[in-house]
Protein backbone atom coordinates (compact mmCIF):
# COMPACT_ATOMS: atom_id res chain seq x y z
CA UNK A 1 0.00 0.00 0.00
CA UNK A 2 2.82 2.41 0.92
CA UNK A 3 4.58 1.59 -2.33
CA UNK A 4 1.50 2.26 -4.33
CA UNK A 5 0.98 5.61 -2.68
CA UNK A 6 4.59 6.55 -3.29
CA UNK A 7 4.23 5.55 -6.92
CA UNK A 8 1.06 7.55 -7.33
CA UNK A 9 2.66 10.46 -5.52
CA UNK A 10 5.08 10.89 -8.41
CA UNK A 11 2.48 11.55 -11.05
CA UNK A 12 -0.38 12.99 -8.99
CA UNK A 13 -0.34 15.56 -6.26
CA UNK A 14 -1.68 13.59 -3.33
CA UNK A 15 -2.20 15.32 -0.04
CA UNK A 16 -3.59 14.31 3.30
CA UNK A 17 -2.71 10.60 2.91
CA UNK A 18 -4.30 8.59 5.69
CA UNK A 19 -3.72 4.86 6.18
CA UNK A 20 -6.92 4.00 7.97
CA UNK A 21 -6.32 0.25 8.04
CA UNK A 22 -3.66 -1.90 6.45
CA UNK A 23 -6.00 -2.39 3.51
CA UNK A 24 -7.72 0.99 3.36
CA UNK A 25 -6.12 4.30 2.48
CA UNK A 26 -7.65 7.68 1.84
CA UNK A 27 -5.95 10.33 -0.28
CA UNK A 28 -7.02 13.80 -1.31
CA UNK A 29 -6.48 15.25 -4.75
CA UNK A 30 -7.49 18.40 -6.56
CA UNK A 31 -10.82 18.45 -8.34
CA UNK A 32 -9.40 18.49 -11.86
CA UNK A 33 -7.03 15.57 -11.37
CA UNK A 34 -9.43 13.37 -9.39
CA UNK A 35 -10.89 11.55 -12.34
CA UNK A 36 -7.45 11.17 -13.91
CA UNK A 37 -6.33 9.41 -10.75
CA UNK A 38 -9.43 7.22 -10.74
CA UNK A 39 -8.86 6.27 -14.38
CA UNK A 40 -5.19 5.62 -13.75
CA UNK A 41 -5.95 3.37 -10.81
CA UNK A 42 -8.51 1.45 -12.82
CA UNK A 43 -6.32 0.95 -15.85
CA UNK A 44 -2.85 0.46 -14.40
CA UNK A 45 -3.10 -0.36 -10.70
CA UNK A 46 -5.71 -3.11 -10.77
CA UNK A 47 -8.52 -1.25 -9.02
CA UNK A 48 -11.15 -2.88 -11.18
CA UNK A 49 -14.03 -2.78 -8.71
CA UNK A 50 -15.78 0.49 -8.01
CA UNK A 51 -17.30 0.45 -4.55
CA UNK A 52 -19.08 3.72 -4.08
CA UNK A 53 -19.26 7.39 -4.84
CA UNK A 54 -20.34 9.38 -1.85
CA UNK A 55 -20.59 12.96 -0.80
CA UNK A 56 -20.01 14.64 2.56
CA UNK A 57 -21.30 18.13 3.17
CA UNK A 58 -18.76 20.28 5.04
CA UNK A 59 -21.04 23.27 5.29
CA UNK A 60 -18.69 25.16 7.64
CA UNK A 61 -15.92 25.10 4.99
CA UNK A 62 -18.36 25.75 2.16
CA UNK A 63 -17.32 22.54 0.43
CA UNK A 64 -18.62 19.19 -0.67
CA UNK A 65 -16.29 16.24 -0.30
CA UNK A 66 -16.69 13.64 -3.02
CA UNK A 67 -15.26 10.22 -2.21
CA UNK A 68 -14.53 7.71 -4.94
CA UNK A 69 -13.87 4.41 -3.21
CA UNK A 70 -12.03 1.89 -5.38
CA UNK A 71 -11.24 -1.70 -4.60
CA UNK A 72 -8.48 -3.91 -5.89
CA UNK A 73 -9.94 -7.44 -5.80
CA UNK A 74 -6.66 -9.24 -6.44
CA UNK A 75 -4.53 -7.21 -4.02
CA UNK A 76 -7.46 -6.99 -1.59
CA UNK A 77 -7.14 -3.37 -0.64
CA UNK A 78 -9.17 -0.20 -1.06
CA UNK A 79 -8.28 3.30 -2.03
CA UNK A 80 -10.54 6.21 -1.16
CA UNK A 81 -9.98 9.22 -3.37
CA UNK A 82 -11.29 12.42 -1.84
CA UNK A 83 -11.78 15.62 -3.69
CA UNK A 84 -13.33 18.87 -2.56
CA UNK A 85 -15.64 20.97 -4.68
CA UNK A 86 -17.31 24.25 -3.93
CA UNK A 87 -20.82 24.19 -2.49
CA UNK A 88 -22.08 27.01 -4.70
CA UNK A 89 -22.96 25.84 -8.18
CA UNK A 90 -21.53 22.48 -7.28
CA UNK A 91 -20.52 20.58 -10.37
CA UNK A 92 -18.18 17.74 -11.17
CA UNK A 93 -17.02 15.97 -14.29
CA UNK A 94 -19.10 12.91 -14.94
CA UNK A 95 -17.39 9.55 -14.65
CA UNK A 96 -20.18 7.44 -16.08
CA UNK A 97 -17.97 6.05 -18.83
CA UNK A 98 -15.62 4.39 -16.35
CA UNK A 99 -18.10 2.08 -14.64
CA UNK A 100 -21.73 1.52 -15.52
CA UNK A 101 -23.10 2.00 -12.01
CA UNK A 102 -21.59 5.46 -11.53
CA UNK A 103 -24.46 7.02 -13.47
CA UNK A 104 -26.81 5.87 -10.70
CA UNK A 105 -24.64 7.39 -7.97
CA UNK A 106 -24.44 10.62 -9.88
CA UNK A 107 -28.18 10.70 -10.32
CA UNK A 108 -28.60 10.28 -6.59
CA UNK A 109 -26.05 12.98 -5.74
CA UNK A 110 -27.72 15.37 -8.16
CA UNK A 111 -31.00 14.85 -6.41
CA UNK A 112 -29.82 14.66 -2.82
CA UNK A 113 -27.09 17.30 -2.85
CA UNK A 114 -27.68 19.26 -6.02
CA UNK A 115 -24.29 18.43 -7.49
CA UNK A 116 -24.46 18.57 -11.25
CA UNK A 117 -22.72 16.02 -13.42
CA UNK A 118 -23.10 17.33 -16.97
CA UNK A 119 -23.45 14.58 -19.54
CA UNK A 120 -24.29 11.75 -17.18
CA UNK A 121 -27.20 9.70 -18.52
CA UNK A 122 -30.64 10.42 -17.02
CA UNK A 123 -29.00 12.64 -14.41
CA UNK A 124 -31.86 15.11 -14.48
CA UNK A 125 -34.59 12.54 -14.00
CA UNK A 126 -35.88 12.25 -10.50
CA UNK A 127 -34.46 9.19 -8.84
CA UNK A 128 -35.87 8.75 -5.38
CA UNK A 129 -37.95 11.80 -4.65
CA UNK A 130 -40.93 12.77 -6.71
CA UNK A 131 -42.05 16.32 -7.22
CA UNK A 132 -39.54 17.71 -4.73
CA UNK A 133 -39.37 21.48 -4.82
CA UNK A 134 -37.32 22.31 -1.72
CA UNK A 135 -33.56 22.53 -1.51
CA UNK A 136 -31.90 19.11 -1.95
CA UNK A 137 -32.66 17.28 1.29
CA UNK A 138 -29.25 15.89 2.15
CA UNK A 139 -27.67 19.34 2.35
CA UNK A 140 -26.90 20.23 5.92
CA UNK A 141 -28.94 23.42 5.94
CA UNK A 142 -32.14 21.51 5.20
CA UNK A 143 -33.97 20.93 8.48
CA UNK A 144 -35.87 17.70 8.10
CA UNK A 145 -37.66 17.91 11.46
CA UNK A 146 -39.05 21.35 10.75
CA UNK A 147 -40.10 20.33 7.26
CA UNK A 148 -41.82 17.25 8.62
CA UNK A 149 -43.67 19.22 11.27
CA UNK A 150 -44.80 21.81 8.76
CA UNK A 151 -45.94 19.32 6.19
CA UNK A 152 -47.16 16.09 7.68
CA UNK A 153 -49.69 16.97 10.39
CA UNK A 154 -47.92 15.67 13.51
CA UNK A 155 -50.39 13.92 15.75
CA UNK A 156 -51.19 16.00 18.75
CA UNK A 157 -50.35 14.43 22.05
CA UNK A 158 -47.46 12.43 20.72
CA UNK A 159 -45.24 12.31 23.74
CA UNK A 160 -41.62 12.30 22.82
CA UNK A 161 -38.97 12.28 25.47
CA UNK A 162 -35.80 14.08 24.68
CA UNK A 163 -33.59 11.03 24.28
CA UNK A 164 -30.60 12.69 25.88
CA UNK A 165 -32.37 13.57 29.14
CA UNK A 166 -34.24 10.28 29.16
CA UNK A 167 -31.12 8.20 28.68
CA UNK A 168 -29.33 10.31 31.23
CA UNK A 169 -31.95 9.65 33.86
CA UNK A 170 -32.02 5.94 33.07
CA UNK A 171 -28.39 5.14 32.39
CA UNK A 172 -26.27 7.78 34.06
CA UNK A 173 -28.31 9.33 36.87
CA UNK A 174 -25.14 10.62 38.54
CA UNK A 175 -23.73 12.24 35.44
CA UNK A 176 -23.09 15.92 36.08
CA UNK A 177 -22.56 17.29 32.60
Amino acid at each position, binding site marked *: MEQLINKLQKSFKLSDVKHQRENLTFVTVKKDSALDLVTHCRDYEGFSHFVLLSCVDWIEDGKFQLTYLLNNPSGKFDLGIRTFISRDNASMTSAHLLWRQIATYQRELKEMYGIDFPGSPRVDESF*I*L*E*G*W*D*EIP*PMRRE*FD*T*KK*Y*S*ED*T*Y*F*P*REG*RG*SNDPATYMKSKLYPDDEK
Partner: protein
Amino acid sequence: MTNETNNIVEDKLELEDKFLAPENRKRQVTTPDGTIIEVDPLRDYFSDARPQIYRPNSIPVIENFLNWARAESLWVLGFGTGCGSIELPPLTTPRFDAYRFGVQMRATPRQSNVFIISGYLSVKTLKRVVRSYEQMPNPKYVIALGSCTINGGMYYDSYNTINRLDQYMPVDVYIAGCMPRPEALLAGFNKLKELIKAGKAEKANEYVENFDWYKANQKKIIKDWNMPDYNW
Protein backbone atom coordinates in the same frame (compact mmCIF):
# COMPACT_ATOMS: atom_id res chain seq x y z
CA MET B 1 -68.04 17.80 -14.57
CA THR B 2 -68.64 21.47 -15.22
CA ASN B 3 -66.59 23.71 -17.45
CA GLU B 4 -65.33 25.64 -14.51
CA THR B 5 -63.59 22.68 -12.91
CA ASN B 6 -62.16 21.68 -16.24
CA ASN B 7 -60.44 25.02 -16.48
CA ILE B 8 -58.92 24.59 -13.10
CA VAL B 9 -57.55 21.22 -14.13
CA GLU B 10 -56.13 22.79 -17.25
CA ASP B 11 -54.29 25.52 -15.38
CA LYS B 12 -52.84 23.03 -13.02
CA LEU B 13 -51.60 20.82 -15.81
CA GLU B 14 -49.59 23.61 -17.30
CA LEU B 15 -48.01 24.34 -13.97
CA GLU B 16 -47.03 20.76 -13.43
CA ASP B 17 -45.97 19.93 -16.94
CA LYS B 18 -42.41 19.44 -15.83
CA PHE B 19 -43.42 16.49 -13.70
CA LEU B 20 -45.30 14.73 -16.49
CA ALA B 21 -43.81 11.75 -18.25
CA PRO B 22 -43.67 12.25 -22.02
CA GLU B 23 -46.34 9.66 -22.72
CA ASN B 24 -48.79 11.50 -20.48
CA ARG B 25 -48.43 14.85 -22.24
CA LYS B 26 -50.85 16.22 -24.77
CA ARG B 27 -49.71 15.39 -28.26
CA GLN B 28 -50.67 14.71 -31.85
CA VAL B 29 -50.99 11.09 -32.86
CA THR B 30 -51.33 9.53 -36.28
CA THR B 31 -53.72 6.63 -36.26
CA PRO B 32 -53.08 3.57 -38.46
CA ASP B 33 -55.50 4.83 -41.09
CA GLY B 34 -53.66 8.11 -41.43
CA THR B 35 -55.81 10.63 -39.61
CA ILE B 36 -54.24 12.85 -37.04
CA ILE B 37 -55.90 13.11 -33.67
CA GLU B 38 -55.00 14.95 -30.53
CA VAL B 39 -54.47 12.85 -27.46
CA ASP B 40 -54.55 14.08 -23.90
CA PRO B 41 -53.92 10.97 -21.85
CA LEU B 42 -54.75 12.52 -18.52
CA ARG B 43 -58.16 13.54 -19.75
CA ASP B 44 -58.86 10.59 -22.05
CA TYR B 45 -57.94 7.62 -19.99
CA PHE B 46 -59.86 8.45 -16.86
CA SER B 47 -63.31 9.40 -15.89
CA ASP B 48 -63.43 12.52 -13.77
CA ALA B 49 -66.71 11.87 -12.00
CA ARG B 50 -66.91 12.19 -8.26
CA PRO B 51 -67.29 9.09 -6.11
CA GLN B 52 -70.69 8.03 -4.89
CA ILE B 53 -72.00 6.97 -1.52
CA TYR B 54 -73.38 3.45 -1.44
CA ARG B 55 -75.83 3.06 1.39
CA PRO B 56 -76.11 -0.29 3.16
CA ASN B 57 -79.12 -2.41 2.39
CA SER B 58 -82.12 -1.07 4.23
CA ILE B 59 -83.32 -4.48 5.41
CA PRO B 60 -81.27 -5.31 8.50
CA VAL B 61 -81.45 -9.09 8.10
CA ILE B 62 -80.06 -9.00 4.57
CA GLU B 63 -77.41 -6.47 5.48
CA ASN B 64 -76.32 -8.56 8.46
CA PHE B 65 -76.07 -11.64 6.28
CA LEU B 66 -74.04 -9.79 3.64
CA ASN B 67 -71.81 -8.31 6.30
CA TRP B 68 -71.19 -11.78 7.65
CA ALA B 69 -70.10 -12.91 4.20
CA ARG B 70 -67.90 -9.84 3.80
CA ALA B 71 -66.30 -10.43 7.17
CA GLU B 72 -65.58 -14.08 6.54
CA SER B 73 -64.06 -13.48 3.14
CA LEU B 74 -61.40 -10.79 3.43
CA TRP B 75 -59.38 -10.40 0.27
CA VAL B 76 -56.20 -8.53 0.95
CA LEU B 77 -54.50 -6.43 -1.66
CA GLY B 78 -50.97 -7.73 -2.08
CA PHE B 79 -49.19 -4.39 -1.92
CA GLY B 80 -46.30 -4.34 0.50
CA THR B 81 -45.92 -0.64 1.11
CA GLY B 82 -43.33 -0.72 3.83
CA CYS B 83 -41.15 -2.93 5.97
CA GLY B 84 -44.22 -4.55 7.55
CA SER B 85 -44.63 -6.50 4.36
CA ILE B 86 -41.90 -8.84 5.58
CA GLU B 87 -44.47 -10.26 7.98
CA LEU B 88 -47.01 -10.98 5.25
CA PRO B 89 -45.31 -14.16 3.93
CA PRO B 90 -45.38 -15.76 7.39
CA LEU B 91 -49.09 -14.97 7.50
CA THR B 92 -49.80 -17.14 4.50
CA THR B 93 -47.53 -19.99 5.50
CA PRO B 94 -47.88 -22.86 7.96
CA ARG B 95 -46.91 -21.03 11.11
CA PHE B 96 -49.67 -18.48 11.15
CA ASP B 97 -51.86 -19.47 8.20
CA ALA B 98 -54.30 -16.62 7.88
CA TYR B 99 -56.24 -18.61 5.27
CA ARG B 100 -57.98 -20.30 8.17
CA PHE B 101 -59.84 -17.07 8.79
CA GLY B 102 -60.88 -16.57 5.20
CA VAL B 103 -58.06 -14.12 4.52
CA GLN B 104 -56.71 -14.44 1.00
CA MET B 105 -54.26 -12.43 -1.07
CA ARG B 106 -55.34 -10.80 -4.31
CA ALA B 107 -53.08 -9.10 -6.77
CA THR B 108 -55.39 -6.44 -8.13
CA PRO B 109 -57.15 -3.67 -6.22
CA ARG B 110 -60.35 -4.31 -8.17
CA GLN B 111 -60.82 -7.63 -6.43
CA SER B 112 -59.60 -6.74 -2.94
CA ASN B 113 -61.48 -5.52 0.08
CA VAL B 114 -58.75 -4.99 2.64
CA PHE B 115 -55.76 -2.75 2.22
CA ILE B 116 -52.96 -3.44 4.66
CA ILE B 117 -50.77 -0.37 4.88
CA SER B 118 -47.72 -2.21 6.07
CA GLY B 119 -45.74 0.54 7.69
CA TYR B 120 -44.50 4.00 6.86
CA LEU B 121 -45.59 5.63 3.63
CA SER B 122 -43.27 7.79 1.67
CA VAL B 123 -44.92 10.50 -0.39
CA LYS B 124 -44.17 8.64 -3.58
CA THR B 125 -45.87 5.51 -2.27
CA LEU B 126 -48.79 7.46 -0.86
CA LYS B 127 -49.65 8.56 -4.36
CA ARG B 128 -49.85 4.92 -5.49
CA VAL B 129 -51.68 3.93 -2.35
CA VAL B 130 -54.36 6.56 -2.94
CA ARG B 131 -54.81 5.29 -6.48
CA SER B 132 -55.03 1.68 -5.41
CA TYR B 133 -57.37 2.52 -2.55
CA GLU B 134 -59.76 4.41 -4.79
CA GLN B 135 -59.82 1.58 -7.30
CA MET B 136 -61.00 -0.88 -4.69
CA PRO B 137 -64.74 -1.48 -4.75
CA ASN B 138 -67.01 -0.37 -1.94
CA PRO B 139 -67.08 -1.67 0.84
CA LYS B 140 -63.37 -1.51 1.54
CA TYR B 141 -61.36 -1.58 4.72
CA VAL B 142 -57.94 -0.30 5.72
CA ILE B 143 -55.68 -1.88 8.31
CA ALA B 144 -52.77 0.35 9.29
CA LEU B 145 -49.82 -1.67 10.48
CA GLY B 146 -47.13 -0.25 12.68
CA SER B 147 -46.48 2.84 14.74
CA CYS B 148 -45.32 4.80 11.75
CA THR B 149 -48.84 4.96 10.35
CA ILE B 150 -50.19 6.24 13.65
CA ASN B 151 -47.88 9.13 14.46
CA GLY B 152 -44.78 8.73 12.38
CA GLY B 153 -43.08 6.34 14.75
CA MET B 154 -39.38 6.10 14.08
CA TYR B 155 -39.66 8.48 11.19
CA TYR B 156 -41.45 11.35 12.90
CA ASP B 157 -38.78 13.75 11.67
CA SER B 158 -38.24 12.38 8.20
CA TYR B 159 -38.83 14.66 5.27
CA ASN B 160 -40.28 11.96 3.07
CA THR B 161 -42.68 9.92 5.19
CA ILE B 162 -46.14 10.89 6.32
CA ASN B 163 -46.92 11.05 10.01
CA ARG B 164 -50.60 10.24 10.21
CA LEU B 165 -52.36 7.98 7.79
CA ASP B 166 -55.84 9.05 8.84
CA GLN B 167 -55.31 12.44 7.28
CA TYR B 168 -55.19 10.88 3.84
CA MET B 169 -57.58 7.96 4.02
CA PRO B 170 -59.94 6.56 6.64
CA VAL B 171 -58.50 3.75 8.73
CA ASP B 172 -60.54 0.95 10.26
CA VAL B 173 -58.00 -0.79 12.46
CA TYR B 174 -54.64 0.39 13.73
CA ILE B 175 -52.06 -2.13 14.84
CA ALA B 176 -49.33 -0.60 16.96
CA GLY B 177 -45.77 -1.79 17.25
CA CYS B 178 -42.59 -1.68 15.28
CA MET B 179 -42.86 -4.09 13.81
CA PRO B 180 -46.09 -5.76 14.89
CA ARG B 181 -45.92 -9.51 15.15
CA PRO B 182 -48.04 -11.67 12.85
CA GLU B 183 -50.21 -12.58 15.81
CA ALA B 184 -51.03 -8.90 16.21
CA LEU B 185 -52.03 -8.79 12.58
CA LEU B 186 -54.28 -11.81 13.07
CA ALA B 187 -55.85 -10.07 16.04
CA GLY B 188 -56.32 -7.07 13.80
CA PHE B 189 -58.18 -9.20 11.29
CA ASN B 190 -60.45 -10.49 14.01
CA LYS B 191 -61.12 -6.96 15.22
CA LEU B 192 -61.95 -5.94 11.68
CA LYS B 193 -64.35 -8.85 11.38
CA GLU B 194 -66.12 -7.75 14.56
CA LEU B 195 -66.44 -4.25 13.17
CA ILE B 196 -67.80 -5.46 9.85
CA LYS B 197 -70.31 -7.79 11.47
CA ALA B 198 -71.49 -4.96 13.69
CA GLY B 199 -71.96 -2.80 10.60
CA LYS B 200 -69.45 -0.23 11.80
CA ALA B 201 -66.95 -0.56 8.97
CA GLU B 202 -68.46 1.96 6.57
CA LYS B 203 -65.31 4.00 6.17
CA ALA B 204 -65.51 3.88 2.38
CA ASN B 205 -68.60 6.07 2.59
CA GLU B 206 -66.88 8.29 5.10
CA TYR B 207 -64.12 8.85 2.57
CA VAL B 208 -66.70 10.01 0.04
CA GLU B 209 -68.45 12.25 2.53
CA ASN B 210 -65.22 14.03 3.45
CA PHE B 211 -63.83 13.73 -0.03
CA ASP B 212 -62.74 17.35 -0.37
CA TRP B 213 -60.94 17.35 2.96
CA TYR B 214 -59.01 14.19 2.15
CA LYS B 215 -58.16 15.47 -1.32
CA ALA B 216 -56.88 18.77 0.06
CA ASN B 217 -54.62 16.92 2.47
CA GLN B 218 -53.35 14.59 -0.21
CA LYS B 219 -52.68 17.39 -2.64
CA LYS B 220 -50.84 19.34 -0.02
CA ILE B 221 -48.04 16.82 0.09
CA ILE B 222 -48.23 15.17 -3.33
CA LYS B 223 -46.77 18.01 -5.27
CA ASP B 224 -46.85 16.46 -8.72
CA TRP B 225 -50.52 15.63 -8.81
CA ASN B 226 -50.85 14.35 -12.35
CA MET B 227 -53.78 12.03 -12.02
CA PRO B 228 -57.53 12.51 -11.91
CA ASP B 229 -59.05 13.51 -8.61
CA TYR B 230 -60.81 10.21 -8.23
CA ASN B 231 -59.33 7.09 -9.75
CA TRP B 232 -62.05 4.78 -10.88
